[in-house]
């Protein structure tokens, strides 16, 4: 006969209540570790979104006037293709530039509405042979002021610093969250072992009267899962705060131009939330499975 949901929930609730302090410690640890883990993802998404035009070794961008003639365009292309100091380039036409703009400013539809592909400047994104800052500055300068060129923008040291800093911060976030997740798994295990010991007599009676192994185990496993789910809810709240209050602040119009595009798309936020939930479930199933198989000799 199957386990009654009412029975399973009641027993799980009682277990949580009996071990209230330890349960809360577990929930908070899971919440903080998942928050850090999710924060690692959100931060990476935001940095990637902000610096995507500078990825793949691109060191400077030659922005053309939308009204540049085909001859002017051909001259710039010829200069790029014949330069021995340029390793590679990508041409982003007006339609592609518009798509990128829409992507970056997806959370600001009023801005996207007033822009059309015709006003978007096409650009050449250039990968030099030598990424040294002085070499890049000298090379970018060769295109500055040429007919049809609107402006030339270099990936300056600040952007590189941001990328480096982001890498380091992400590593710390990830390492910290993994350590905390391991601690959370151990806490779930400890919590359930404690519950098993507290209920030694009940378990003995259950075995004697013929309760199945799963009937005995399920409430304990549910206890671990409930703790993890509560931790995930706690983490979601924290991630919402990161997205709205921290990342959102950088993407406001009056923030640094450098941080334009430093934001998280809604699908990235949903993915991160789902990942946090998945990790929470995995951690709880691992912790509670070890506890019931090692300490609940059925």
């Amino acid at each position, binding site marked *: 006969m199957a*386990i*009654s949901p009412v029975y399973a929930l009641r027993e799980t609730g009682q277990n949580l209540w009996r071990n209230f302090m330890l349960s809360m410690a577990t929930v908070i640890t899971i919440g903080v570790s998942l928050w850090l883990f999710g924060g690692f993802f959100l931060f990476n998404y935001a940095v990637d979104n902000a610096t995507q035009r500078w990825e793949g070794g691109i060191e400077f961008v030659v922005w053309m006037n939308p009204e540049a003639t085909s001859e002017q365009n051909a001259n710039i292309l010829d200069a790029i293709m014949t330069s021995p100091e340029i390793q590679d380039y990508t041409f982003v036409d007006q339609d592609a530039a518009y798509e990128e703009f829409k992507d970056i400013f997806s959370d600001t539809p009023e801005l996207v509405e007033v822009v059309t592909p015709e006003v978007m400047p096409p650009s050449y994104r250039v990968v030099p042979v030598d990424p040294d800052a002085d070499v890049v500055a000298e090379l970018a300068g060769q295109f500055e002021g040429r007919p049809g060129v609107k402006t030339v923008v270099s990936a300056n040291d600040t952007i590189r610093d941001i990328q480096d800093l982001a890498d380091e911060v992400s590593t710390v976030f990830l390492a910290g969250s993994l350590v905390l997740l391991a601690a959370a798994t151990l806490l779930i295990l400890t919590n359930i072992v404690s519950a098993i010991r507290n209920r030694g*007599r*009940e378990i003995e009676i259950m075995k*004697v*009267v*013929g*309760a199945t*192994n799963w*009937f005995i185990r399920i409430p304990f496993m549910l206890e671990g899962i409930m703790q993890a789910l509560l931790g995930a809810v706690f983490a979601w709240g924290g991630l919402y705060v990161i997205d709205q209050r921290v990342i959102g602040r950088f993407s406001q119009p009056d923030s640094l131009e450098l941080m334009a595009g430093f934001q998280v798309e809604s699908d990235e936020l949903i993915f991160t939330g789902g990942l946090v939930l998945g990790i929470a479930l995995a951690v709880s199933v691992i912790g509670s499975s070890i506890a019931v198989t090692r300490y609940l000799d059925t």
Partner: protein
Amino acid sequence: MIKLENVTKVYKGENVALRDATLGIDKGEFVFLVGASGSGKSTFIRLLNREEVPEHGTIYVAGKDIGTLGRWKVPYLRRNIGYIFQDFKLLPNKTVAENVAFALEVIGKPRHVIKKQVPAILELVGLSEKIANFPSELSGGEQQRVSIARAFVNRPLILLADEPTGNLDPQTSVGIMRLLDRINRTGTTVVMATHDQGIVDTMRRRVIELDRGVIVRDQARGVYE
């Protein structure tokens, strides 16, 4: 109902708890297991419930070789065997009715069955008036009655009792034995380990005596010594 064929149980350190035991117990029998402490009475009972597995020999319960049962089938075996403890093992945070209902609840019986069977069994053991009391509010004899009710509420084929009167005074013990006798008359096989000479001598039922793990006497309508 129960059959042992050359059953030997050895604990760690070469401590032989049961040696080459062979016997049969029919349906509806009432059997006393007697012998000194450490003679193997509790091991005998634990083997029947598959809490222990013998090193040698075969045990049949209700026609099934319980030594070959898969782990997942053991709970279903135990649903046919009621178990009464010397120290009652009631759950202190549950009432009398809840303690008895617990035995049905954890084997997945529906609520309407529990609601019907619990009052009936509590009436049988004479505790209808104490249905809402907690174990701490009961006498030793009453607690043992609750324990018996919990063991019998699922109407098992066999009732195993390990020193059920060991913690009770003689007068209360008589009441408990009357109750077990009444249950036995319903066709339930009762196997009871005891040190209580007065009870064994009064009831005059089958007596199996163990001495250091060996069956030294198997006597119908026997006495303690």
